[in-house]
């Protein structure tokens, strides 16, 4: 009776090989998968802001157009975060006593700006410009989602390069008529033919071309 091993070693050996191989592969796969999960992309994270600002209320109830507060969206790279002054344009009249607006009044009188927390961020080496997108018929909702249904603004698109490329390669389906840019509810025609027709028309109208050269975004 001199075998160096006992019979159950056979099972043991095969198991351990399976575990080692599977483990390594699994780890890599998990690592890769992470960036494709909502967590990795930081989607649907409700971010606490210094002021309890509710887009639903302002957009739906008060019918304030996006461009009223995001004044720069048609002219500049960044859409523009409203200044304290802008809040008070209305709130000096209405709700001017509301405790919810205390931070606003504080900021105005001390002159210390409100520090909002960033939700949509592209890396600094990616040069995104709002004005050109808006001018070429890309609606707010396309990237920012139904802000009018968000108590607190959350990210709905990954903002990863591959995601950008989808549209940059084939802009047509994402375009909408100029008057619908800020609309939260506009949808392209149901009927496929009409949809493509409109897309083609808009492509012409806006003179949109697909731009996928690196320097379009990286400089």
């Amino acid at each position, binding site marked *: *009776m*001199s*075998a160096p091993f*006992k019979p159950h*070693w056979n099972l043991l050996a095969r198991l351990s090989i399976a575990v080692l191989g599977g483990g390594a592969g699994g780890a890599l796969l998990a690592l890769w998968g992470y960036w494709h999960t909502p967590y990795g992309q930081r989607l649907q994270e409700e971010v606490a802001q210094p002021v309890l600002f509710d887009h639903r209320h302002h957009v739906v109830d008060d019918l304030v157009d996006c461009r009223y507060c995001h004044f720069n969206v048609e002219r500049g790279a960044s859409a523009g975060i409203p200044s304290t002054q802008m809040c008070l344009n209305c709130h000096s009249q209405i709700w001017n006593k509301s405790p919810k607006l205390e931070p606003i009044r504080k900021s105005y009188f001390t002159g210390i700006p409100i520090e909002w927390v960033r939700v949509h961020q592209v890396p600094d080496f990616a040069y995104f410009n709002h004005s050109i997108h808006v001018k070429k018929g890309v609606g707010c909702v396309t990237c920012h989602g139904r802000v009018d249904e968000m108590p607190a603004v959350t990210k709905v698109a990954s903002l990863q390069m591959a995601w950008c490329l989808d549209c940059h390669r084939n802009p047509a389906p994402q375009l909408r008529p100029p008057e619908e840019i800020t609309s939260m509810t506009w949808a392209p025609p149901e009927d496929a033919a009409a949809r493509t027709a409109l897309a083609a028309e808009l492509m012409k109208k806006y003179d949109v071309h697909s731009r996928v050269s690196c320097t379009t975004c990286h400089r």
Partner: protein
Amino acid sequence: MREPRVVLCQVASVEKLYDAARTLQAAGFTALDFYSPYPLPGSDEVLKLRRSPVPAIAAVAGFTGVALAVLMQWWMNDVDYALNVGNRSAVPSPTWVPIMFELGVLLAGIAIFLGLLALFRFPQPYDPLFEVDAFRSATVDALWLSVKVEAGEVERVSSELRQLGASEVQLVPEGA
């Protein structure tokens, strides 16, 4: 005892080994195997083994690798994101060749290795044969022969083998 038992014996030389095998086969015992420290010329014929599937495995894997390489390079650089790289945009491109070759070899090689493991049922550190202490010489310098027999015939076969000049004739204990 339905389980067939294995009789194991050491044989002095290759010629003797093959004689013993042939006699046993003549007697209807075909479940034979030899054990030697290095491959024995002709053993395949004596044992009447079928052709090995290993070459087929290698071929399939190899050509898969080549095809994969072509598709990968073409799709990634000329379809999915067709960048203008120094105005060198020929399809098919000679630049595909190195990776076609490498990927083919890589897959073939890995397939052969895994194929062998599968064919051998490896890893298999334990084997009832190892219970026979003298059998350790099988990988060092001795030639061994094993034959599967019905429990009833162990004795007959053993004596047969001794007559054929085999030494160390023993019954392999049942796999615990």
